[in-house]
């Protein structure tokens, strides 16, 4: 009876794996799930059709999808998507798009959903210091945080229909300033290893980078690290005034665990803390706390992980 519409998350025109998690979220909410895949061509939509539990795939194809532009994306997607509850990823663009789509349809938007139980949605408020439980009476657009739902499997074979759209872009990218490093962004990563002021010198972050390479992880930082050292960019900052992350594993090294840092990472599935001070507040939130200097602990960690993961 009720239809749920997943707006696929894409990166550089390819389907992002979080889309399969959104399908699980949608199947929790409604009886029938449609995926709308915004792209300049139908390739990503074809890969979405193999996600299990999807009744229909709509390839929303248009030139406007070459770069993110909120206004034209919302216009084009709105005309492809049937009515119902819209589900986006709680990524930077996913949340922006959810807001636009909701406004376009004059419905409400509920961001950062971390739980769906029957008709009850749960979202963090006050940076995770409390949770808000709500129900919808009517359509809405919601965004769902990564790692909230297990990804739907594959083996589906939903029909793909292509809908060509044209919408005028309202903003124009004049220049892309590529990231200095090829490193994974903390907002994208399933494992994050972050360093704080306890790392003592930005050069010591190289130890974290080597571990990150072994784990396929991103490197993050506390605000104290970002503020103290020019070499550590704000884009690495996790916390209230940095990025909010929800990885499977968060490893905090030389980070005290201030409330504003916790605000950005407390929902991580597993937290490991390495800190030399047994009284550091981070230990209260860690699943596994290691009381040690990083100088002692990281070489052992690196050796163990190399042995395990190659």
């Amino acid at each position, binding site marked *: 009876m009720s239809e749920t519409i997943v707006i696929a998350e894409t990166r550089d025109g390819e389907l992002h794996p979080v889309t399969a998690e959104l399908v699980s979220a949608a199947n929790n909410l409604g009886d029938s799930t449609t995926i709308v895949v915004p792209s300049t061509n139908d390739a990503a939509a074809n890969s979405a059709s193999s996600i299990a539990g999807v009744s229909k795939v709509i390839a929303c194809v248009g030139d406007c999808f070459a770069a993110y532009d909120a206004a034209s994306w919302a216009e084009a997607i709105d005309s492809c998507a049937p009515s119902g509850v819209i589900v986006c990823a709680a990524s930077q663009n996913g949340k922006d798009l959810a*807001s636009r789509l909701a406004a376009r349809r004059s419905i409400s938007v509920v961001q950062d959903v971390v739980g769906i139980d029957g008709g009850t949605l749960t979202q963090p*408020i006050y940076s995770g210091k*409390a949770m808000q439980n709500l129900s919808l009476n*009517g359509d809405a657009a919601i965004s769902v945080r990564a790692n909230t739902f297990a990804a739907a499997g594959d083996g589906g074979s939903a029909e793909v229909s292509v809908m060509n759209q044209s919408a005028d872009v309202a903003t124009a990218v*004049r220049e892309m300033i590529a990231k200095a490093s090829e490193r994974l962004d903390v907002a994208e990563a399933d494992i994050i290893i972050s360093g704080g002021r306890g790392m003592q010198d930005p050069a010591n972050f190289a130890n974290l980078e080597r571990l990150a390479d072994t784990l396929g992880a991103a490197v993050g930082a506390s605000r104290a690290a970002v503020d103290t050292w020019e070499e550590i960019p704000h884009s690495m900052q996790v916390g209230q005034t940095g990025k909010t992350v929800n990885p499977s594993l968060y490893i905090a090294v030389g980070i005290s665990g201030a409330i504003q840092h916790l605000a950005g990472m407390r929902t991580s599935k597993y937290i490991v803390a390495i800190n030399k001070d047994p009284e550091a507040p981070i230990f209260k939130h860690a699943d596994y706390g290691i009381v040690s200097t990083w100088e002692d602990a990281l070489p052992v960690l690196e050796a163990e992980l190399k042995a395990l993961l190659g």
Partner: protein
Amino acid sequence: MGFQSKGCTLRGTGDKMTEIAVLVKRVPDTNAQILVSGDRVDLSAVKWVMSPYDEFALEAAMLHKEAKGGNVTAITLGNADCDKVLKDAKAVGVDRIIRVWDDSWSELDSNQAQSALANVIRDLGINIVYCGKSAADTGAGSTGPGVAERLGWASASNIIGLEFEDTGVEAMVPAATGNARTGVSLPAVISCDKGFCKPRKPNVKGIMMAKRAQVEVMSSDIPSSSVNIISHSPPPKKAPGQTFEGASEVPRVVAALRNDANVI
């Protein structure tokens, strides 16, 4: 020198003055403890402040005026308790302060709040709106793009750099692969991250002016709400963690991550 450079950039968009608005919200201080009593958060004891990113939005609005002329209107949506954030904005030099409210309203959902803000912004003839990338209470980041959509305007969100141009702005927008230097024509809504400017502090004269300033109150039609808040609850308690002493215990933690937690 400063005089001259000011003189040649004073013109706004075409013949029309740039009408700048900034959205400022009253929120609990980010250090405040948030208690849940019964099934609602109890905010009776918290200290209230202007939402941190709104300070950057306010500074951006003031810089825009200084670069291109025009007027800055600070707008908040909320009851009379929210006058203080408007006075704070007045103290750093905004021209006009407006509170959007109707005594028949209580808590508004996003659809209602954005509609009210968008209606007032339209009525005021504003052509650029600055707001925070997300408010410290909701963390949502919905208002900027939502208001823009309702007005049929362009928007750029989470911006970390800003240049003022005669018919728009150039914003630095973070993207997955780097930062996009993005041209945005007016009218537009710009939601601000921190880092590209340093919010100014009010001076004594500003504070005195703010004391005397009148808050204008405006109302608007709003749609009905489509979300029901059932309850608030404290964050889920995690099972107590384990603590290990010394680097020699690291292999046990790695084994647990592998075998118990299944995350590596």
